[in-house]
């Protein structure tokens, strides 16, 4: 065989099969571009230029792994699909006298050509689009927009290595397959396995059972920690169930319908039911993959947009005031001495006056926090609390002196010894009494003091606020009890929180001065055991958006990758069905079906088969909703309405996109089917 002959054959092979190869090539290019972009963005230098790092960097790093893994799986999958079609041609070469070595060389040339071309084009596209992606990212995470254009040679290298690896993997598997088959098998491989499906009761029912189980997990989920634990289990169950249902379950359903003679032997059902069974068997796996990809996209978009647009909300829940100052006394470890507090308060007041800042919604109080498991009316001392079983019982109890409560709520109250006023946050029902070790209270429900800042607590836990008269005695008794039980030192704290009318920059400036003021005050007091914590919402915002914006960006990027995959699977499905239906179209016409009948039947089948995955994906999403809601609680997001909204919108967008893809690909289908008629 002449040397130049091989590349020519390979090139011809691609050209002749361009209906199959073009989308494949496009996928390679897009995957390479995506991978380059995410590699580029995940670099510390790029993120530093934007003015971010930390959490965003970790997220994007994670994203590179996901995209890489997905690229490997997906390109491998599509290649096997292509190979199935190409084998026929290879079989012909073999019969016409080309040996397997020759065929392997042609095949290698083909894959090589595709890999090299797509890597070059992909990198070019990636480099061209990387700046755009960078600007988008920087916008989302409220970073700094820079306008210098850079090429990251490291990202280029990573991309090249990854795609060279994929190339090796794909060609190796292809070569093994070409070598293993006999010419007759090669010729027949495309029509191989075109048997009508048999119903598999075990698998079909198993699929339904597994799905019900996964849904049950999600719907009955109680708390965020178990949601986190069960989420991945549920995801795996749903994936397994989807494949089982699409491959076996749907065939089973068709077979059951076929058993009902009265239903089956009707003009409207006869052809559709039997060809559906046939289609589902051949395309079940593809449909299930589409369904799972769509579900992933929906879940990702719904939750990350919710996180992003709810960022302000969660920021507010975690930081109810613009500024929060908290002091503890490391020397005594137990009490905050009023004279120390006085120093802080004075320094704070002076600063605010000097700066001319009017503090609003002030709250100024001592409090004492104790966490434990609430069983009935007893708070059990327990500190290792992040545990699925104990989560629901976990309660934070905050104890406040009555003087502070009166001052902040502007009313006079009387609290007898052994009594406590109480209000709750995120609690189901207020207990009537409460025992913490040796201390016992009768609880009297009262109004919440609106200005009390709940502080940066962990969301999702029950919080009880108790107002007591003999604050020092109570807290000291509980401290002693906890010390004995758990060896843990519980601290009393003093908290000062306020809002301002300042702009974001001014708040940040004030925040810096605030910290400095305390450092000065501390030096002056010479009480190095006295500690403070000073937080400003504005300072946190940066970090919040760094994380949530990063999530959002990653969500969009991965969704794009998954959608491309879904589109390609749909396209190949339509094409292969088109080729398959060509001959059936003819036969049905010969036995007396009108063209209109055939078209109608095919249309309804295609529509069903096409919208089954998205229908199923939406069903998955609906059942995943309770779990998502719980998971988002972990991020401090309590806004269910927003989640419903983002879920609804993402379903809508996906559906529209899907419908467009349907139109385009079904045109390809019809052109194949009718092309055969001429």
């Amino acid at each position, binding site marked *: 065989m002449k040397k130049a002959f091989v590349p020519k054959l390979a090139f011809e092979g691609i050209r002749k099969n361009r209906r199959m190869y073009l989308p494949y090539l496009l996928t390679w290019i897009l995957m390479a571009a995506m991978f380059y972009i995410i590699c580029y963005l995940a670099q510390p230098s790029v993120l530093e230029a934007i003015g971010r790092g930390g959490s965003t960097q970790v997220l994007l790093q994670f994203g590179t792994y996901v995209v890489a893994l997905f690229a490997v799986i997906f390109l491998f999958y599509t290649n096997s699909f292509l190979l199935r079609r190409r084998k026929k041609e290879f079989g012909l070469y073999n019969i016409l006298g080309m040996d397997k070595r020759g065929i392997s060389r042609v095949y290698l040339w083909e894959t090589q050509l595709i890999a090299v071309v797509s890597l070059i084009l992909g990198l070019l596209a990636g480099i061209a689009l990387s700046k755009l992606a960078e600007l988008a990212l920087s916008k989302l995470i409220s970073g700094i927009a820079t306008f210098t254009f850079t090429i990251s040679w490291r990202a280029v290298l990573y991309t090249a290595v990854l795609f060279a690896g994929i190339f090796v993997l794909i060609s190796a598997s292809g070569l093994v397959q070409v070598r293993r088959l006999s010419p007759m098998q090669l010729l027949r491989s495309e029509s191989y396995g*075109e048997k*009508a499906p048999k119903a598999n009761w075990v698998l079909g029912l198993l699929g339904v059972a597994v799905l019900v189980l996964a849904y049950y997990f999600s719907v009955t989920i109680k708390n965020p920690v178990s949601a986190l634990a069960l989420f991945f289990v549920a995801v795996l169950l749903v994936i397994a169930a989807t494949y089982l249902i699409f491959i076996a379950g749907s065939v089973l359903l068709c077979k059951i319908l076929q058993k009902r003679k009265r239903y089956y*032997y009707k*003009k409207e059902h006869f052809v559709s039911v*039997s060809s559906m069974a046939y289609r589902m068997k051949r395309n079940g796996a593809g449909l299930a993959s589409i369904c799972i990809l769509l579900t992933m996209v929906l879940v990702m978009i719904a939750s990350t947009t919710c996180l992003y647009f709810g960022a302000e909300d969660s920021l507010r829940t975690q930081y109810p005031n613009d500024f929060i100052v908290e002091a503890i006394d490391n020397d005594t470890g137990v009490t905050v001495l009023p004279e120390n507090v006085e120093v802080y308060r004075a320094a704070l007041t002076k600063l605010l006056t000097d700066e001319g800042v009017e503090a609003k919604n002030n709250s100024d109080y001592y409090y004492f926090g104790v966490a434990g498991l609430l069983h009935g009316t007893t708070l059990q001392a327990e500190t290792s609390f992040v545990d699925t079983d104990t989560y629901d019982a976990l309660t934070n109890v905050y104890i406040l002196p009555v003087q502070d409560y009166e001052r902040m709520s502007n009313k006079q109250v009387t609290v007898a010894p052994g009594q406590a006023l109480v209000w709750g946050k995120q609690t189901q029902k207020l207990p009537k009494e409460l025992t913490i070790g040796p201390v016992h209270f009768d609880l009297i429900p009262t109004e919440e003091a609106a200005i009390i800042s709940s502080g940066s607590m962990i969301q999702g836990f029950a919080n009880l606020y108790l107002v007591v008269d003999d604050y020092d005695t109570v807290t000291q008794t509980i401290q002693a009890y906890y010390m004995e039980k758990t060896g843990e030192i519980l601290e009393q704290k003093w908290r000062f929180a306020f809002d301002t009318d300042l702009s974001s920059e001014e708040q940040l400036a004030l925040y810096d001065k605030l910290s400095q003021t305390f450092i000065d005050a501390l030096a002056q007091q010479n009480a190095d055991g006295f500690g403070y914590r000073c937080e400003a919402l504005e300072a946190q915002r940066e970090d919040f958006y760094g994380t949530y914006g990063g999530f959002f960006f990653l969500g969009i990027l991965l969704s794009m990758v998954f959608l491309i995959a879904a589109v390609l699977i749909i396209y190949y499905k339509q094409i292969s069905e088109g080729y398959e239906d060509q001959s059936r179209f003819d036969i049905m*016409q*010969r036995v007396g079906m009108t063209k209109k*009948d055939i078209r109608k039947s095919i249309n309804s089948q295609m529509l069903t088969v096409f919208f089954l995955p998205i229908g199923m994906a939406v069903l998955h999403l609906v059942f995943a909703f309770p779990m998502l809601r719980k998971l988002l609680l972990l991020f401090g997001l309590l806004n269910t309405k927003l989640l419903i909204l983002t879920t609804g919108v993402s379903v809508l967008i996906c559906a529209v996109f899907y419908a467009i893809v349907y139109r385009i690909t079904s045109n390809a289908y019809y052109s194949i089917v009718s092309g055969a008629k001429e």
Partner: protein
Amino acid sequence: MSLLEVKGLKKIYKTRFGGHAVEALKNVNFSVDEGEYVAIMGESGSGKTTLLNILAALDKPTAGTVLLDGKDFSKLKEASVAAFRRDNLGFVFQDFSLLDTFTLEDNIYLPLVLSGNSYEKMHKRLEPIAEQLGIDRLLKKYPYEVSGGEKQRAAVARALITNPRIILADEPTGALDSKATDELLRLFSRINEAGQTILMVTHSAKAASHASRVLFIKDGEVFHQIYRADSSCEKMYQKIVDTLSLLTGGGAE
């Protein structure tokens, strides 16, 4: 009046890019009487399949008419043509044309289901036919699970089950070995004796020798025809072979 009457049939295929047109049929005239068994022979490319497609209303003639029972169905709308085809014509093709998605039984029912028959009725009709064709034990199998001859018998059953006025067969023995061919030809003779009209296109002189009449097509016209009258199959075969050698200047097959 004859069952089928073909008058002045002409078919010109126009190639798509306005290239030269192909005249597949020039001027075909013949008629088939009720209960006849007619074979059509001719060289490859002489227009046999084209003729059959027009008879089946799968294609429209450029000129000329086809009358079945005195009705010209080329004038019907597509929906009525499909129904007409279903009720009056039965088809047997070289490639069997069975759908892989159906069992043999369902394949046979297909035309009846399309005209809206109930399962019980179809089943009652199928029983004697299946027995006659010797496929009663294969009904639950799929096409890829049975042999070519068995497939063709199922296709014949599908053609017969509608009680068609005429069966059109395009090289029905083309994909069969000699044993299966013999079986099928015997079958055709038997159903013809029972009164079924058959029109069969074939390349094989042996297959044609079973017919009561053989038409030869050349250059888009009926060139010659021979009647069997009372002669035996062997005599008929000889006549056909002689005509063919005259037609092509060479031997048959």
